């Protein structure tokens, strides 16, 4: 199954993002007991990048954080605001930094460390367990921002760990995150094509290829809307998928309508989830919720 949720705050307040996503995920917890995660798009960092690093799957986070901090100093990354919470380190670097080198340096230094997200606005937090556990560990309800995605995972094929949890960052393109409910049946074929081009896969989760695919499309100069339409042509299987960049938020639904996806839009927000109960429980009030059509693509600007 898996639960997916997305929220775009159209007001100027931007105070409720974390709370809304948490409430939506709590309602979707029954769709995915294995892990929970959010991709949050916060206020601008004046062009700087926020980097989130997973400090390993098997403890020793404090030791790795110390090593990471030392590494960042030794390579002259100019990292500041370095902090750690549970399995993650977070720091800020200048917008002009060579991200490819930075990411490679971090991940080469320790096989268990993984850059989970990089963005001027984006921060991803995910972990094994329920949305309640995610809130307990990372206090996501406090997070303010313009838009975000959420996911609860029911693992059907690949491992249950932090890396295989969603949302997925595109690994390389700042501020691009996706959540996916479904099964990409031509995943192995696509994976082989991208691997032959030197793109690294971090997991065996088929949803990862969606992030890589969209990054590839955007890298070719396509708009997000065109990229989502292209997905309908190039990806086989079932997918209800939400995607967000620093300035846009959208969804695509597969050509066979095999997975649920509902959305609502008011003057104050856009909310998308694969069960109406998630939208209603997070956002009380009178508004219409409707099921997306087959092959429907929608994109909103922040």
């Amino acid at each position, binding site marked *: 199954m898996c639960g997916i949720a997305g929220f775009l705050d159209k007001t100027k307040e931007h105070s409720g993002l974390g709370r809304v996503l948490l409430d939506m995920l709590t309602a979707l917890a029954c769709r995915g007991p294995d892990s929970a995660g959010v991709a949050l798009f916060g206020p601008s960092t004046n062009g700087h990048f926020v980097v989130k690093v997973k400090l390993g799957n098997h403890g020793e986070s404090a030791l790795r954080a110390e090593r990471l901090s030392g590494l960042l100093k030794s390579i002259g990354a100019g990292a500041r605001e370095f902090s750690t919470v549970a399995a993650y380190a977070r720091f800020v670097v200048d917008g002009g930094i060579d991200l490819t080198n930075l990411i490679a340096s971090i991940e080469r230094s320790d096989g268990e460390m993984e850059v989970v997200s990089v963005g001027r606005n984006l921060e991803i937090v995910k972990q094994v367990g329920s949305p309640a556990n995610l809130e307990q560990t990372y206090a996501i309800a406090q997070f303010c921002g313009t838009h975000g995605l959420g996911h609860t995972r029911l693992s059907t094929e690949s491992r249950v760990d932090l890396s295989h949890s969603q949302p997925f960052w595109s690994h390389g393109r700042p501020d691009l995150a996706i959540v996916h409910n479904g099964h990409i049946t031509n995943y192995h074929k696509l994976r082989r094509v991208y691997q032959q081009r030197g793109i690294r896969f971090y997991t065996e989760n088929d949803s990862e290829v969606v992030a890589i695919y969209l990054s590839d499309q955007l890298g070719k100069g396509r708009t997000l809307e065109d990229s989502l339409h292209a997905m309908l042509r190039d990806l086989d299987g079932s997918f209800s998928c939400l995607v967000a960049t620093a300035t846009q938020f959208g969804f695509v639904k597969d050509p*066979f*309508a095999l997975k*649920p996806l*509902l959305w609502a839009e008011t003057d104050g927000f856009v909310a998308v989830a694969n*069960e*109406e*109960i998630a*939208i*209603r*429980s997070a956002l009380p009030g009178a508004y*219409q*919720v*409707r*099921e*997306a*059509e*087959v092959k429907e693509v929608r994109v909103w600007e922040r």
Partner: protein
Amino acid sequence: MGEVNCDGRSTQEINAEIKQQIKQGATEILVRNPGARHNLGVAILEPVAIRLDGSVGYYCGGLIDGPNFEIAGSAGWGLAESMMNGQVVVRGNVGNGAAAAIRGGTVVVHQDAAARLGVSMKGGTVLVAGNCGYMAGFMGQKGTIIVCGDAGEAFADSMYETVCFVGGRITELGTDAVIEEPSTADAELLDSTLAKHLPPELRKSKPAGRNFKKVVSGRKLWNFDKREWKTWQEAL
């Protein structure tokens, strides 16, 4: 009128209370604050009127035989699935698989229906005032589907004896579906069904019965001999 408030209660508790009130003789029950919960009002076998004052989640009114449901909001996947008899009216939209495998009764949707409306129907009537999505009527064996607006792709695919009527545009007919001229009796049936089930403000913008397209099975698939390759290939 009996009343059940869903706030702070589980689906099991809500359904148990609905059934308890029916047992105690209630003939009308107002269900407040359904909050898009799943599986509300399933397997009710008495001719009771149940009104839900908001949206419902998956499988509302499934496996019912006789009750009259009215849903003020929208409904999720599998509305009234396998209903035997009764009526389910939804004032909003419905998700995938509404009225799937129903054997009797009537499902009325005031707005749009998503994919797979009325798949594998074995009887009954489905009336959608708006549009319907992908693959409506798939493998329908009996009964009637009426869509006042547009129909999506693969409409009426691989049907047996279900009869469909569409007031708007059909994006694409499914395999072995054919358009047939509606008869005078068909037009009368459509006019009377719409007049009976749609409120006047909805009815006035809908086409007259004679202007609906009738879609039936071409009967090349459902009773073919597997040795007749040519027939099969033509149907596909």
